[in-house]
């Protein structure tokens, strides 16, 4: 891998890479991981409370409470995005804010807001899946593959 990367580089470039690397502050991986765990876990915990709320107050089954729970999280994530707060939380939370459904909501909402200046059709609607689109594409492909495996093995 390292050699393949270096194939197109001149000796001067490789030497410079070493000079630059020495000064480069590393990503705080441990801190990022801990924060991602805490903030991501916190979001999931909130989701758990919301689910319990629907089960207790509206007497839903756990399965029936899943959809309104997701919708609630999506709504509040979109609201926080619109208020300009979600991206600040994300600088702390990292993967903890992008992996849960709230991250998906943020990806769609932020793109939708951003492109409002180009109009509702050419702007908002054609750009709102600009970042979230790959998630849908790979989600559908993965679901298809898993379903195929399941049919082949269990039928």
């Amino acid at each position, binding site marked *: 891998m390292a050699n393949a990367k270096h194939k*197109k*580089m*001149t000796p*001067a*470039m*490789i030497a*410079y*890479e070493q*000079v*630059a690397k*020495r*000064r*480069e*502050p*590393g*990503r*705080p991986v441990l801190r*990022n991981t801990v924060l991602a765990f805490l903030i991501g876990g916190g979001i999931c915990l909130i989701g758990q409370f919301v689910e319990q709320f629907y089960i207790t107050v509206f007497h839903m089954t756990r399965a029936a409470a899943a959809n309104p729970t997701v919708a609630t999280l999506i709504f509040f994530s979109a609201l926080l*995005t*619109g208020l*300009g707060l*979600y*991206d600040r*939380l*994300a*600088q702390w*939370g*990292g*993967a903890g*804010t*992008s992996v849960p459904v709230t*991250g998906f909501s*943020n*990806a769609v*909402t*932020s*793109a939708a*807001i*951003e*492109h409002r*200046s180009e109009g509702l059709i050419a702007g908002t609607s054609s750009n709102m899946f*600009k*970042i979230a689109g790959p998630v849908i594409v790979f989600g559908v492909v993965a679901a298809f593959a898993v379903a195929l495996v399941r049919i082949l093995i269990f039928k």
Partner: protein
Amino acid sequence: MLQGRRTWRFENSPRIISVGTAVGPKEGKGPLGDSFDVVHGDIRLGQNSWENAERVLMEEAGDRALQKKGLVKEQVEFYIAGDLMNQVITSSFAARTFAAPYLGIYGACSTSMEGLALAALLVNSQSAELVLTGTASHNAAAERLYRYPTEYGAQKPPTAQWTVTGAGAALVGRDGEGPKITAATIGRIIDMGVKDPFNMGAAMAPAAFDTIEAHLRDLNVETDYYDIIATGDLGRLGSDILRDLWQKHGVRVAAGQHQDCGVLIYGDDPSVFSGGSGAACSAVVTYGHLLARLAAGEWNRILIVATGALLSTLSYQQGESIPCIAHAVAIERA
């Protein structure tokens, strides 16, 4: 007059007769906040798009430069401007307002000194008597064009930089008071193979090194000829690398002699990561802050080296490295 390989020496000493700067709220709150002519409290400037906000900044910077000398836009003979937007729209729309003969340029964050060098060249060669040059950038407009939607939650690495919201303009003329532009060195593309668009400092440092070396060689002077050498937007990381490169090649630069506009503009603010960047960074710091200190007599000669990363969103997505450039302009106290 060409001296050496790529340095213009301006024997008729064109002058920066006036400057104008306009910035956003974050820059206004920074350590140089008092240096700027206009500080906006709202990053949107009451406009309906980030691009329009950037254009307003560009126009304000030019207007302020004219107003300070009681000049009107009809007296501007040429307008040389550039910015970070696709097809340099900010400059072209501002040029529509100024209605002067217009040259649109693109040098990414090196645009400020590219414009100033060309303006000085026009005036020095008696092709013009009054040239307005300027550049602008806007944090949100740049974020959405080069990175992600502004409200998208992407975690940035510590090597990232913060695009300055602002605009700086300079009026270059033949007569009058104001600092003299004595020389300019045009950069060549230096590409050391850095591909990470979140590490512009490391990508651009070699370009700054190359241009400064060429400038000193062409003029046959040492680094101590200048009171300060100010790079455009290398940030903390790029500045450290540049000093390493100087040390490695035996170039002596005294402590404090090298300054970086990207470090000066936000100070130690941790939210900007490695420092400021963007076309406006070197423009507002040079025109708003450094020239004021020059005029106050703190320095006699300064060299401004604006650095630019000439990548596009397409080029880095296609895995290309980042071609970088630096243009240097030498300015002396009148």
